[in-house]
């Protein structure tokens, strides 16, 4: 690989990643050399600028043809574009949140680290969306994971933060190992790490033995990635880690990291297992035949997430379980493959909704908990009277999470259901579990609203809202309602820009 080849690559395709990378490096250098007394908070604006630039460059890449560079390890297809956009939006919002994050003991000198670690994590996620082979995929995954281990524990002197990050490392390490082990088998049966090639080899696979190993590998990869998306029974780290992590990091884990998990899951499933034969005769596709496993995990995740959330008193833990449940809903879409017509629309839209509503919720949690020093749900008490607009915004997010019409959450769920019903026979049991889970979720979601509107005021302290958070709150609230009432804004955008994601599998 000489210089000419290097230069012949269309590096423009990696523009957003380069921008993020550049910002990260700039930030780390700045952090290193700026005087100690200099407020690191300002670095957030650099980071935000970087993200916005990356976003703009990504938008300018929309018209870019699908390319794959670096011998097909990095692909810029519509799938990558679409999900990168979501990642960047989410990251931008979280940076704004982090900007006004003020834990009791303060972040002090770690604030600078926080921003560039955050960006590296983002970079990892972005690479995952674009990766065209297992190596980049794995590297991206680990970049994301390692950065988030540190982010979780960035409050070095906080005991629960230490514990959370330790737990995260151990669990994450195990999951990485399992994933990698599965990937090694996949490599073994195909002899390649390039997704395109692998998919071709696997599609032509007739040897029952190899198919069997491929099945085992599938489960290992799936389980390993399930840690990332916190699907039951691989979800158990999530509540503890969310609780111990700084609120913006919890938001990051529950939104960006989970989104990355789904993206990689889809990448692998769709490019490898969709076309792989499910049995020796090749009558059924692998995914089609084995979707019962995914479906039962989805069901389990929904049940556990919603049911255990009922008993939570800590806001972050509660939303950890809530986000577990939402992962379950998304897994339903994966299991049913969106009925064959709706898969990517559904997941993209749901993740968009999820970004908006969940970051909104975490913004409110951050505001309230940093003010009162407690994360108990009683800090919400009387919010409706104390600061009605904040309460209104929170209500919007909650309604959206609960899937009430008029919000994005509803349209998202609706999409998932369409996918479950459109095939024959429909996935009625799964849909039943999902709808039952939704009803159960009303209990705890509305329990929060009960605190806000029906209970007497918890403390008279006025909630001070920094501009960064208020921007997040407003964007999330407006987005939630806007895309809920006029989802076609999002759908049309998706279809106009990315069509049917037809360039997903194609590779030269």
């Amino acid at each position, binding site marked *: 690989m000489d210089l000419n080849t290097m230069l012949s690559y269309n590096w423009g395709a990696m523009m957003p990643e380069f921008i993020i990378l550049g910002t990260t490096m700039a930030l780390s250098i700045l952090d290193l050399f700026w005087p100690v007394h200099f407020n690191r908070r300002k670095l957030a604006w650099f980071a935000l600028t970087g993200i916005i630039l990356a976003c703009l460059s990504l938008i300018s890449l929309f018209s870019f043809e699908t390319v794959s560079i670096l011998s097909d390890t990095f692909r810029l297809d519509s799938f990558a574009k679409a999900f990168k956009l979501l990642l960047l939006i989410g990251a931008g919002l979280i940076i704004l949140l982090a900007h006004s994050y003020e834990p009791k003991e303060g972040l002090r000198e770690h604030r600078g680290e926080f921003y560039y670690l955050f960006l590296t994590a983002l970079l990892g996620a972005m690479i995952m969306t674009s990766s065209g082979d297992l190596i980049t995929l794995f590297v991206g995954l680990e970049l994301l994971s390692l950065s988030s281990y540190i982010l979780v524990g960035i409050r070095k002197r906080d005991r629960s933060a230490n514990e959370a990050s330790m737990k995260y490392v151990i669990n994450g390490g195990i999951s990485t190992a399992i994933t990698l082990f599965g990937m090694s088998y996949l490599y073994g049966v195909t002899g390649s790490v390039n997704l395109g090639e692998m998919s071709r080899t696997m599609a032509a696979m007739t040897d029952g033995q190899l198919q069997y190993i491929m099945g085992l590998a599938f489960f290992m990869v799936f389980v390993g990635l399930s840690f990332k998306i916190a699907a039951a029974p691989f979800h158990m780290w999530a509540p503890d880690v969310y609780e111990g992590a700084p609120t913006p990091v919890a938001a990051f884990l529950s939104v960006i990291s989970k989104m990355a998990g789904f993206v990689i899951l889809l990448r692998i499933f769709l490019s490898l297992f969709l076309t792989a034969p499910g049995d020796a005769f090749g009558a059924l596709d692998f995914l089609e035949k084995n979707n019962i496993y995914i479906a039962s995990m989805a069901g389990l995740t929904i049940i556990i997430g919603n049911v255990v959330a009922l008993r939570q008193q800590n806001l972050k833990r509660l939303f950890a379980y809530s986000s577990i449940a939402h992962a379950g809903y998304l897994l339903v879409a994966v299991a049913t493959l969106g009925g064959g017509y709706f898969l990517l629309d559904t997941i993209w839209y749901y993740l968009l909704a999820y970004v908006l509503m969940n970051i909104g919720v975490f913004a409110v949690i951050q505001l309230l908990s940093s003010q009162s020093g407690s994360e108990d749900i009683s800090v919400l008490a009387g919010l409706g009277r104390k600061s009605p607009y904040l309460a209104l915004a929170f209500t919007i997010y909650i309604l959206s999470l609960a899937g009430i019409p008029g919000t994005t959450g509803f349209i998202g769920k*609706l999409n998932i259901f369409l996918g*479950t019903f*459109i095939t024959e026979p429909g996935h009625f049991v799964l849909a039943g579990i999902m709808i039952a889970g939704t009803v159960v979720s009303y209990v705890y979601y509305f329990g929060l609203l009960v605190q806000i509107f029906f209970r007497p005021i918890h403390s008279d302290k006025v909630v001070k809202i920094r501009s960064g958070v208020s921007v997040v709150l407003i964007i999330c609230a407006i987005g939630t309602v806007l895309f809920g009432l006029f989802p*076609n804004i999002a759908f049309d955008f998706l*279809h106009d820009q990315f*069509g049917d994601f037809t360039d997903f599998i194609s590779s030269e």
Partner: protein
Amino acid sequence: MNAYLLSLLVFSPLLGILMVALMPKNEERTIKQFGFFGTLPPLFLSFFLCSQHYSGVALSSFNIKLDWIRFGNLEMYDPKLFTVNFELGLDGLSLIFILLTTIISSLAAMASIYIKQGWKGYYLLFLILEIGMLGVFTAENLILFFIFFEMTLIPAFFLIGRWGFLEREKASYHFLIYNGIGSAILLVAILILFARTGTTNIAALTQMMTMGGVSLFAPISSSMKYGLCLAFVIAFAIKLPVFPFHSWMVRVHAEAPPAIVMIHAGVLLKIGAYGIIRFGMGIFPEQYKSLAFGIVLMGVISFLYGALLALVQTDFKLVLAYSSISHMGIVMMGLGALNEAGLQGAIFQVISHGLIAAMLFFLVGALTERSGTVMLPKLGGLAKSMPVFSGFMLACGLASLGLPGMSGFISEFMVFLGLFKSQPVLAAISVIGLVLTAVYILRAVMLMTFGKNDSLVEKEKLDLEGWEFIPALVLLGLILLIGVFPNLLGGPLQGTIEAMMLALGGR
């Protein structure tokens, strides 16, 4: 102009919302006034619609259809597939329900004067609730219907939980969860239809389900049609509510603020009946026919069960709650009768009970304001201290037990007329309920108004006064009007009923 009139009607409470929202939150008087004025635009618009109808303008000319959502990217198959339009429409049935909604909303807004705190939030939610109700009755497709349906749920949850009586939170939870289950079932049914046919337009679905349409995707088997029809019926039976699904509603009646129960009993429960007529009967006439026996049975059980339980309650609100269950049983009986008399009777019963229940709860509100309780053992002899109130109460009670000359009689008469034709045995069993109804209503009303005057109400200035006459007189007037000239109500319904009967296959 006509095309936008309906959307204007549905969203006209927004004007009030805006006005109330702009008020500072301590301006009690102004907020209450604006809140009430906010219910007037829809009221006048609905009157206007009604007058248009009577002057011969076809109701369908008010229909509106705008592009809204398109799910999936299936343009290459058929651009109309999986589209959900914003489409509102009107027919005789919805016109009647809209009138009921606007009238009761205005009166309930008036009765909300009794609300003691949090006026701003109250009226905002109240007006949102009204938008939801208006939307439910005009929605032309299932998704839109569902959206408006849920839109009634959330404000009602807050209104009950925040402004209700002692156990309000529990009541609001029960309300939420039961209705949540109901709407979950509804949603599943709606989405199965949507997923399998690619449309949610009610007319198109009716066409497909009865004539057998072409499905691009997996077809809807006939057993699935039964399932869907049953799902619709159960979902709306929870809303109505009938016997096994009623316990939430009892709590709501007992704990919600009376003005909200006016809306709740007056309009919200009626969505159940509307839904069964529109979707259960409308979309799946074949399947509905074979479920009819079960529906009637459910109705009969509710009718008797509600009446029997109302007999032993000591809280007047609970008496009314069980009486509502009982009366909704009559609706089910009518709906299951599968003939013109039954269906028309059921619709009449819906409207009539809406008015009567609204009036009763208005009176409950007025009494609570004065005595602080509506526990029957604590009341008595109100006829002496509050003769006018007692007169209205008695009139209302009589209306409720189906006295001729009042709206309740017409509906009960028609329902039984219909039921004796199609299910004579069940009808014969259920007539016991007519006697029981008289027993429990007289018991409750007479415990309050008759007897020795030893109740808590023993202060000066007790009787109804001033504005309080307006809701009472308007409602009583409407009850009497329908009772004496039933064709005023029956006229606009004929078209809808005929169409339904045609689909059900004759009388």
